[in-house]
């Protein structure tokens, strides 16, 4: 095998430039159609959330625009009992796995419609109903936790697996290396997925690591690894499915580097024009994962312009309607501040809760 074709240094692609696909890989019609719908909805949702942030209606948002194929492709390759540990840009996995859109958006508003009770910043979703655990904000810790959950599944002889996501920046953290090492040593049923979107805020991947690819790091830990075109839904789906099958079959963890690009700002607090060129962004827009899948669906005879326009309208309505419902929930009560610190309220928190009750109302933000 030549170096360029190796799993760690090459690039696994299924979609071709002429919109056909590599016939060696088959992804059912139902899966690609569902994936397209989910990716379209996610793009609409992200745009809407960024708009709400600009209007001051939500506090923050981290979009995954340009990277939709990775969370959506992964979500569709999993079983209901599998667990998911996202980083910043994979919240949407839970939507594909059945989490209600209104509750998802309520998290962004941080109001009482949010299962997390408004405790976390936007883009830090979790949902017990769909086995998704939120990242904290800290870059790295969830990778190790995914391995731990997978390990528990193995010890309990379950057939489920755990998936842990990370950005390219996260591979510089100690937790990444601990996770890969544990995954290798204990052969945990896990899929670790790195979204290499070329930037960690303003730091390019080339300054993040001197390795030729991120996937190659897996070799040293004896964790089978591969590098995948992350803007190719079929490739992501097929790679994750194979990795998940391997994990279920007792072959341990696979590490997948998905090569993609963050089209938008790092978050609503960032201005990318300070550190990267428009040309670079434009060149990646030409490889847009949603466009590529759309062209493939047309090529496959599953989609035409009329159907596509109808889908767009339907999904826009769905998102707008969900925003309306989600925004209407009241803020969490201020006493709820003290819930869930411990299972029972200890004496000092009881006292502090009383203190808060006696306090005058707090000013609003900016007031």
């Amino acid at each position: 095998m030549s170096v360029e074709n190796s799993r760690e240094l090459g690039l696994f692609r299924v979609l071709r430039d002429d919109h056909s696909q590599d016939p060696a890989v088959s992804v059912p019609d139902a899966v690609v159609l569902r994936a397209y719908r989910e990716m379209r909805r996610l793009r609409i949702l992200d745009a809407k959330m960024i708009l709400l942030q600009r209007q001051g209606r939500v506090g923050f948002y981290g979009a995954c625009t340009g990277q939709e194929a990775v969370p959506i492709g992964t979500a569709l390759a999993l079983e209901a009992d599998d667990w998911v540990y996202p980083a910043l840009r994979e919240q949407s996995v839970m939507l594909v796995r059945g989490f209600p859109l209104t509750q998802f958006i309520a998290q962004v508003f941080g109001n009482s419609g949010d299962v997390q009770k408004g405790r976390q910043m936007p883009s830090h979703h979790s949902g017990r109903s769909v086995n998704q655990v939120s990242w904290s904000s800290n870059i790295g810790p969830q990778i190790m936790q995914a391995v731990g959950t997978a390990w528990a599944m193995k010890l309990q002889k379950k057939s489920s697996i755990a998936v842990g996501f990370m950005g390219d920046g996260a591979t510089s953290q100690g937790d990444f290396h601990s996770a890969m090492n544990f995954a290798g040593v204990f052969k945990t049923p896990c899929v670790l997925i790195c979204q290499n979107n070329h930037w960690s805020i303003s730091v390019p991947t080339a300054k993040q690591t001197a390795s030729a690819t991120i996937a190659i790091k897996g070799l040293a830990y004896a964790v089978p690894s591969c590098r995948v075109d992350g803007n190719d839904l079929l490739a992501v789906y097929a790679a994750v499915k194979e990795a998940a099958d391997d994990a279920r079959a007792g072959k341990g963890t696979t590490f997948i580097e998905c090569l993609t690009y963050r089209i938008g700002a790092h978050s609503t607090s960032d201005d990318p024009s300070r550190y990267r060129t428009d040309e670079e962004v434009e060149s990646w827009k030409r490889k847009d994962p949603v466009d590529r899948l759309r062209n493939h669906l047309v090529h496959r005879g599953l989609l035409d312009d009329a159907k596509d326009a109808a889908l767009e309208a339907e999904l826009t309505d769905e998102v707008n309607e969900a925003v309306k419902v989600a925004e209407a929930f009241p803020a969490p009560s201020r006493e709820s501040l003290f819930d869930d610190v411990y299972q029972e309220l200890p004496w000092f928190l009881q006292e502090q809760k009383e203190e808060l009750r006696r306090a005058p109302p707090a000013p609003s933000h900016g007031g």
Partner: protein
Amino acid sequence: MTQMNMVQAITDALRLEMRRDPRVVVLGEDVGKVGGVFRVTQGLYDEFGEDRVIDTPLSEGGIIGAAIGMALYGLVPVPEIQFSDFIFPAYDQIVSELAKMRYRSGGEYVSKLVIRTPVGGGIRGGLYHSQSPESLFIHVSGLKVVCPSTPEDAKGLLLSAIRDPDPVLFFEPKRIYRASKGDVPEGDYTVPIGKARIAREGDDVTVLAWGAMLYEAMAAAEQASEQGVEAEIVDLRTLWPVDIDTIVESVKKTGRVVVVHEAPRTCGFGAELVSLVTERAFLHLEAPPVRVTGFDTPFPYTLEMDYLPLAHRILPALLETAKF
């Protein structure tokens, strides 16, 4: 004198010291070309180049560990931790290594560096972009801890910190990064480490505060004044080693003390301050010392204004303590 906000004042101090002392290097995540996510290191990369203003891989343990090694060899690193909430991957390097280097080597090896990091809430940052972890570092012998509240102090204290012989944690209250504006002297000057500032004089109750909460205490003091209570506000500026003389002198005058901090109450720095005051001015106290602090919960997202010890919670504490 030039009007500056705190961000500009800190940049000014870094630029001045980097020009003066070639051993000074800045390193951290996004500190280079983009000038830091809060733009504190803006312009430094262009002036001093990538060998002195270094974008590192995303690893706080890596940043601080490397800075310690650089410092042992004679550089003067000023690493930035992007948010003080993200300092914990480096906690081992700071607590086990940095703080103890001088002691464990019998004074032969000193790792002199200044860790700059934004601190505090009120910016809709949720659990991990809002915390105030100062007491976790004050508790560790061997570290100095500074937290300015004005642009002038920020510049003068940072210059002192970089020239100080010991490692310093320099907490920058990000809620007032741009909101605090003031005259800043041009050129070189220092504000000594270990000296507090009387931000407001008064005879009725002493308030100990720092960082962003200083302004909340000031606002509460003005409202208390309308009700006949004059608070004396001590801006600690250096948290450790704290200016014990200024504190004790003020408490002896007023006989009452209120401590304000954003961090949770239990084992917060307020606990230490109250102990110090009680030990030294017990017979002068005319009311129990009071702490107005963040609650003993993680830092919340939506309810952060209820969580923070803002003026609306400080005012009743001032009035009650004064009238006790």
